[in-house]
């Protein structure tokens, strides 16, 4: 019964892991011509300014997106849980971006960010702010993409946090209310500590997925544009090396490096969780 999955995972997931590690020690050129090159890919990678920039960009995305997104998701989730009317309506609407194709989201936002005819610039103009080239200005493009990413993931994570908040036993709130705690204090002393397991799950998954951002960047930034290097994430740079520049060996080294970074980050999170995550 486990044979199909085990064999499938073996061929399409296990073997690839070994293969990527092996390939990272080879030059793999066009038509898959291979020649052993030892650590050369790694040496080249550590000296590659574009790699360091895309790693830096990736870190910027993580720092811009993850805290803001989690904060928004948490605020929305706790507001929805405060006994208001129309909760399920709000929940459904907020979830819509989560079922919308990333490529389409990127297309619509590119159009809204458009430097000449975009609605966002039209709104800025109303307030006397001149039009901005959001997606070709290297300083603005990365924050602009981050906004799109926050927009498309906040609702999804809000659902997870809301489920966590709803799982908190009512008795805690009753006890707090008897002690005269205001709604703000209830939030900080009951809701927040007890929702930490969900918060931890959201943190880990969104860190990992933000580290692997691809769709939005690939779709929104033109390949030859000024903003390309200023917005390229590690995964986009990996993709370009593997499938556009046809440097599969180098791309493999990049993949290994990315994996190591994600691994270290996850281990740190796992170790750190005992300090702030409360399991009942």
């Amino acid at each position, binding site marked *: *019964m*486990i044979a*199909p*999955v085990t064999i499938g*995972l073996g061929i*399409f*997931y*296990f*073997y*690839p*892991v070994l*293969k990527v590690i092996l390939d990272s020690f080879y030059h793999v050129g066009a038509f*898959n011509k291979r020649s052993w090159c030892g650590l050369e890919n790694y040496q080249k990678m550590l000296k590659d300014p574009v790699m360091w920039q895309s790693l830096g960009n990736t870190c910027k995305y993580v720092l811009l997106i993850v805290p803001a997104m989690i904060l928004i998701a948490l605020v*929305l989730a706790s*507001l929805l849980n*405060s006994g*208001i009317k129309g909760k399920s309506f*709000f929940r*459904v609407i*907020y*979830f*819509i971006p*989560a*079922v*919308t*194709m990333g*490529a*389409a989201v990127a*297309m*619509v*936002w590119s*159009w*809204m960010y458009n430097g*000449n*005819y975009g*609605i966002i610039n*039209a709104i800025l103009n109303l307030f006397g702010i001149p039009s901005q080239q959001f997606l070709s200005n290297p300083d603005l493009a990365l924050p602009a993409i981050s906004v799109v990413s926050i*927009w498309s993931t906040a*609702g*999804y994570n809000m*659902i*997870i946090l809301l*489920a*966590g908040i709803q799982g908190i036993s009512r008795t805690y709130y009753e006890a707090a209310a008897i002690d005269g705690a205001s709604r703000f204090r209830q939030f900080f002393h009951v809701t927040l500590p007890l929702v930490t397991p*969900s918060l931890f799950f*959201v943190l880990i998954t969104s860190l*990992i997925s933000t580290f*692997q951002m*691809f*769709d939005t960047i*690939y*779709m929104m930034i033109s390949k030859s544009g000024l903003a390309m290097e200023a917005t390229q994430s590690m*995964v986009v740079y990996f*993709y370009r090396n*593997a499938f556009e520049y046809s440097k*599969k060996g180098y*791309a493999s080294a990049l*993949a290994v490096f*990315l994996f190591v970074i994600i691994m270290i980050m*996850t281990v740190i999170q796992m170790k750190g969780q005992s300090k702030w995550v409360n399991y009942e």
Partner: protein
Amino acid sequence: MKRKQKIFNIVIYVVLIGGILVTVLPFVWMILTSFKTQNEATVIPPAIFPKIWQISNYGKVFEMLPFGKMYFNTIISAGVTVSGQVLLCSLAAYAFARIHFPGKNIIFTCLLAVLMVPSSFFILPQYQLIQKMGLLDTIPALFIPNLFSAFGTFLLRQFFMALPGELEDAARLDGCNHFQIYSRIMMPLVRSGLVALGILTLRFAWNDLMWPLIVNTSPKKMTLSAGLAFMQGQHITNYPVMMAGAVMAVLPLLILFTIFQKQFIEGVAMSGIKG
């Protein structure tokens, strides 16, 4: 006290409705643009509503791209991915949760290890495998690696583990073998888990971009997602037609979501609790 409560509620509604506006506006703008003429879309300041609703923009998408084929490819690929993954993962998950066999722990640990690896790590060798199998630029290329999922197996195992052991004992006394226990007794009981996995997989399979982009390069074999990227890459500046394409690409999943919203939202919430 009562007044304070009232003000508090008003603030909550203002924030929540503000959130709704931010969420919905891009969709409204996408739909409005898709019905405009190119001139209306590029006039400054922008015209909010089209004078005459240009339904023909939607037809133009089909002239520009083999959009019907792309629909077909996406439906087949997503359909096979979802049904294949649910079937294969549930089989394995049942065995991992309920049957003792040698080497089980080692295999399961390996499976957990796959869960830790970022998806972009697999993609290059997966591409080379598909290439070696001679499947590049075919429909099966779109779904083959996605039929197998460590995450799905892990998720469903949690559901099978939660069922009481007496069920099996009773079934075995009645002469059921493992396969019958799985298909007749266990499967109906883990339905919510199967639905959750199906929905998470559908969301992924319908929307995924990188993999379809890599394996299938001729427009006739592309998914909708890759088709949109292809359209964007052509430097087409006919914004209304592009928006019409985007609307059509997202519509099927949005319709499914409006019908099965409860299952979608529960599925996601469950992945947070069980995961």
